[in-house]
């Protein structure tokens, strides 16, 4: 299997946490993978894009036109990273509107939902991961596998993270 995921957001949104979750999931399934993340300057609110490549890869960076899935924790950051997505790929973005593309788009205004109190804004990353689980057909991991990884990283916050995950899974757009 080969599957490449790009996660785009800005510092403070928990991009690195998602890379950790996905790497652990891959490892548990026995998939070879390489993932990369930015630390430092970009963490101070600046653009952060992290890549994870599952399968027989030798370097962690995704090139243009190669990503199977783009997870955008922020609309503009997703747009900036569009060149990496392949035609017909999956796109899960936190936005109130998004340009129509030749891709499978799942747009959810998670910022608004957090503001409305559906979940704590700190869990935006987990909510978006739930949205991925719910909508992306060939996403390589199941809800259970993701939960296990979350628990492994931090058992203390696992429960509240699971709740957010469930909210995303049950969320129906009207």
């Amino acid at each position, binding site marked *: 299997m080969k599957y490449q995921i790009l996660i785009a957001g800005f510092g403070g949104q928990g991009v690195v946490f998602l890379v950790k979750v996905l*790497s652990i999931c891959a490892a548990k399934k026995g998939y070879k993978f*390489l993932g990369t993340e930015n630390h*430092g300057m970009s963490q*101070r*609110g600046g653009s952060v894009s992290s890549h994870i490549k599952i399968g027989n890869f*030798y*370097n962690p960076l995704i090139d243009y036109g190669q990503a199977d899935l783009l997870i955008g924790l922020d609309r503009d950051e997703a*747009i900036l990273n569009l060149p990496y997505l392949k035609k017909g790929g999956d796109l899960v973005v936190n936005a109130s509107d998004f340009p129509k593309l*030749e891709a499978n788009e799942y747009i959810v205004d998670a910022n608004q939902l*957090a503001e409305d109190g559906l979940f704590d804004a700190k869990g935006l990353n987990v909510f978006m991961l739930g949205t991925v689980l719910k909508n992306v057909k060939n996403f390589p991991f199941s809800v259970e596998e993701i939960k296990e990884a979350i628990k492994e990283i931090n058992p203390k916050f696992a429960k509240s993270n699971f709740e957010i995950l469930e909210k995303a899974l049950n969320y129906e757009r009207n």
Partner: protein
Amino acid sequence: MKQTLMGNEAIAYGLLHANTQMISGYPGTPSSEILTTFEKISKNLPVYAKWATNEKVGFEVAYAGAIAGLNTAVTMKQVGLNVASDALMSASFIGNKGGFVLIVADDPGFHSSQTEQDSREFARFARIPVLDPATPAEAYEFAIKASELSQKFGIPVMLRSVMRVSHSREIVEVKDFNFEEKKGSFKRDIPRWAAVPRAGRLGQAYEREKKLKEIAKYSYENFIKPEIEKLKGTKNLIISSGAAFGYVKETLDELGLDIDVLKIDMPYPLPLDELKSLIKHYEKVLIIEETYPVIEEELRSENVYGKMSGDVHTIDEMTKERVLKALKNVGFYKGENIYKPAFENNFEVISRKPNLCSGCPHRDIFFAIKKVFRPKKSIYPSDIGCYTLGINQQAIDTVLCMGASVSMAHGFSIADNKKTVIATIGDSTFFHSGVAPLINAVYQKAKFILVILDNSTVAMTGRQATPERAAPGEVDLKKVVEGCGAEVMEYCYEPDIKKTIEFFKEVKKRYEEVEVPLVVISRQFCVLDKERAKENLKGVFATVDEEKCVACDVCTTQFVCPPMAYNEKGKIEIDPLLCVGCGVCISGICPTDAFIRRDK
């Protein structure tokens, strides 16, 4: 046991595996997690794992350990090696008894550094062997190898990582090992450890030449020959090393090209005779390495192509597209560029710039400094750390390297003495490299203001402890500054801009009276520092009275707190998800008092 590890964590495991008993260093992205992880996994073992005040100090502490027979290591980022280079140059002549691993993490692509230097070049300059891992799993292996080689040949060995290795994740097979405590014992050997020029050093220099030849031979037998044996004898050859290898391998796979690739694990010293005779068998040899042409310079010959022949890009991080272009340039590939974006991206958005965190006290200090010491009449030298982001407030005129704010302030005060020079530096950076230039400035009676932004943490790299924080009551910033002979004023930060401005007005007054540098110690906190932030963030959240906002730009250009942005109506709006409730904007940054308290 299989573990999912980041490159830096893998290096820490490797070091422990190699029985490393002392590790020192100075934090710097992308290297910081090596020491932090080592500290964590060696918790119950008799090891020394501590941050040093700077890279040179860290180098020397760990190096002494290796002279006394222990296996030791020092970690830093590439610019840190510039600071430690003085010690490195000598250590390379003198050598060591225990294994001494110098770990340097480079930052191709300038992700969080002021330069993009290639530390392999430094290894070559200092004449020490360097290992260049391509992935986290390899970083683990190479950390062990580096320590073993250093013991075997009695010379410092560099382990050079890059951001895409240090901050990548992979499954790493961590082998079982038994940590054995050794007792260090220094054996007096004056001609070796205290060799003076010319007699002592000259001898060591010849000895080192000999060693390097042996190491090159070792590298051939153990690293290179097995790889050469695997080559198929295609028409052309690619030589690569470290992370660059990963890009090459993938590109060739994806383009379906069958070209021999030789991966070099130790880019210096190279077995030149053997490699040169290998090269002769190929029509063309393309060298792809990151960042400088280190191997290429060593192997230069007519059929060798790379950066020096203009076929490989010379600045910025590697990408597969860049590898593909190089392949095209030398005629190894004639097809399509498969790494083109699938979507035309003509949507206008701006990339987010890094910014001081919401609620960060540095922002207030910069705001107040500019209010009191107007830009037209002042010069603002600054330094390396989070506060470098004060650039967003245009409150910084120069950034050079660690500690340079102090010496440059001195220089500006002489060169342009009509202006007030008011420099900013963090506490950790001050301890790192600010003390010596302050002493220099005091005895030469320079006149400038130095503001030490003391939040007692190395915030930028992940909140490592500073000397004051690690040993409360022992290292005292104020006493250090007084001991240097400077005038001192202390400010206890309050989230009230009026008070901060008032304080700097007093600074201005006092400055008129003094004849030596005036140092302001601003006692603050870091909002990411959970211990201290809680009591300092008052939970006063802001919103904007749209009637009052006249779009004067003060908050978006002078204060620049992340939640503030113009909305469609041309008024400032505060993103409630980003506001941390420090209440500073309400305390008086807006000329029309448009910021008001938001009821939750």
